[in-house]
């Protein structure tokens, strides 16, 4: 006797506890086995690119905050670098150092959310709250300097909106010391937990060539075992002065490029970020952070594509200037947008529960996917 089976279409989202926002996944499932995943985007589309065309160059900066709202400093940073490249201006040393420290602090904060929500997707809610507690330290440090907790508008074209707060250096050092033991605790509580390993190892394996072909970047690419980090491979700002390693997925618990590797790369990356912060924090030179800010930002005609390593991957700004005060075209190559595309490839043949784990390990921010 043959049992008649049917494929079922399961709509996951846009309102669902673990689609990280308003993502809709159309799952074609047989029982619990996923046959096909079709992501549907656009629920958070806020017309960033169209808006940017109507703004002056410096007015776009607050809008970039809202792309990847968990790593707003990185967004500011990339945009500022792109316009600075168009304008051809050099920023003071002090600005470079502060930018790097801020970007690395932000990277830790962003990875904390990524790791935490990956755990929460799998059912471990407690580490999620511990990580949010630690993230609060970073947000407080940044808030003290620029006055905002999430949408900073801190890195301006040619400089910074504020100089660092007098307490900044002390508090950042305190944070570095505080944070190291919590990584160990996190490892014991979540990373090496047998259930967590079972849920993530050998799940959603992304081979290197597929990853590159799909344009994956950031921890998603490095989890597949390739050493590619724009901070080293295409150094921007002053990253070439610091000594740090690029953690890659090694397949410690399963296959190279599985969810656990992507997760673990983020943890090790936080350690490297701490290393960069520790190298930079004592060497901040004196200077005026606003001295290089141009009075009137009117770049010459031309195009520029500048990319930086955001916590989620390669964030690129493609800007066309037509010689006026408004950008002619701003295209954002958002890392989450590109990384999300690989989801359809990764989820085939896994279970519904794995879709959640894989989505969590890719770590998307819908603000950036939909722009």
């Amino acid at each position, binding site marked *: 006797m043959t049992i008649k089976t049917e494929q079922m279409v399961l709509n996951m989202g846009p309102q669902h506890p673990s689609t990280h926002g308003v993502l809709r996944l159309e799952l074609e499932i047989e029982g619990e086995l996923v046959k096909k995943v079709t992501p549907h*985007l*656009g629920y958070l*589309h806020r*017309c960033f*690119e*169209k808006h940017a065309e109507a703004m002056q160059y410096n007015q776009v900066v607050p809008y970039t905050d809202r792309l990847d709202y968990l790593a707003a400093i990185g967004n500011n940073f990339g945009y500022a670098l792109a316009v600075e*490249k*168009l304008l*051809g201006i050099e920023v003071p040393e002090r600005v470079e150092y502060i930018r790097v420290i801020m970007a690395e602090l932000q990277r830790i904060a962003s990875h904390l959310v990524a790791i935490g929500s990956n755990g929460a997707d799998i059912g471990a809610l407690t580490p999620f709250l511990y990580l949010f507690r630690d993230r609060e330290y970073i947000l407080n440090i940044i808030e003290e300097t620029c006055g905002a907790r999430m949408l900073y508008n801190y890195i301006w074209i040619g400089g910074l909106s504020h100089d660092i707060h007098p307490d900044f250096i002390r508090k950042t050092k305190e944070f570095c010391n505080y944070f190291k033991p919590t990584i160990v605790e996190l490892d014991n509580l979540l990373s090496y937990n047998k259930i967590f390993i079972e849920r993530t190892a050998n799940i959603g394996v992304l081979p290197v060539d*597929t990853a*590159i*072909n*799909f*344009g*994956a970047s950031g921890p998603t690419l490095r989890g597949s075992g*390739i050493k*590619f980090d724009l901070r080293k*491979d*295409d150094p921007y700002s002053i990253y070439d002065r610091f000594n740090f390693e690029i953690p890659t997925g090694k397949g410690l618990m399963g296959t190279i490029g599985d969810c656990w590797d992507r997760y673990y790369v983020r943890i090790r990356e936080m350690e490297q970020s701490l290393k960069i912060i520790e190298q930079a924090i004592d060497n901040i030179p004196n200077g005026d952070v606003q001295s290089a800010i141009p009075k009137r930002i009117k770049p*010459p*005609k*031309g*195009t*520029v*594509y500048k*990319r930086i390593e955001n916590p989620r991957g*390669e964030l*690129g700004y*493609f800007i*066309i200037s037509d010689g006026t005060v408004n950008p*002619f*075209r701003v*295209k954002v*190559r958002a890392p989450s*947008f*590109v990384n999300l*595309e690989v989801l359809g490839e990764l989820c085939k043949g896994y279970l519904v529960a794995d879709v959640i784990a894989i989505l969590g390990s890719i770590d998307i921010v819908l603000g950036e996917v*939909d*722009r």
Partner: protein
Amino acid sequence: MKSAEEIFEILKIEFSDSILELDKDTPTESIISVDPLQIHQISKFLRENPGLQFDSLMCLSGVDDANGNKIKNADGDDVFENGTMSVYYNLHSIPLKHKITLKVTTPRTNPKIESVESIWKCANWHEREAFDLLGIYFLNHPDLRRILMPYDWDEFTTEVSRYPLRKDYKNPEFYQGMKVPY
């Protein structure tokens, strides 16, 4: 590692007519203009040539060049006539670490460009986005649907309000019975 000029020379030898020009005037990077209906061939060559190995497409951006004449159409909206649309391809080679920017230009009315989806999978969504926001048709694309805008956007909108990122875009008055500029 090769500079844009060297790559241009290599391409010029391989695809003599399809490679249009090398634009070196831009302050930051040189742009190679190519034929929109040959981009697939050229991309394939760029990716598979052992001396080039452009294995990663960093960014694909559609641009409305907003050139041509501005005229009024029947409804009294400003539209561009005889203009062009462009698509920029920012390529990068992970093993060889060189970068290049390609540009294709196509007429504004009925813009058609060959898809590079079969070469770089990540072009899929980028091309869908360019189609969605600018109305550039990518030939041989497997799944050319809207991506960011609603799927039924066409049904409720007129010619000028179909593709939001075009420079002559006008907000439609109603979408599904809802007033758009609230």
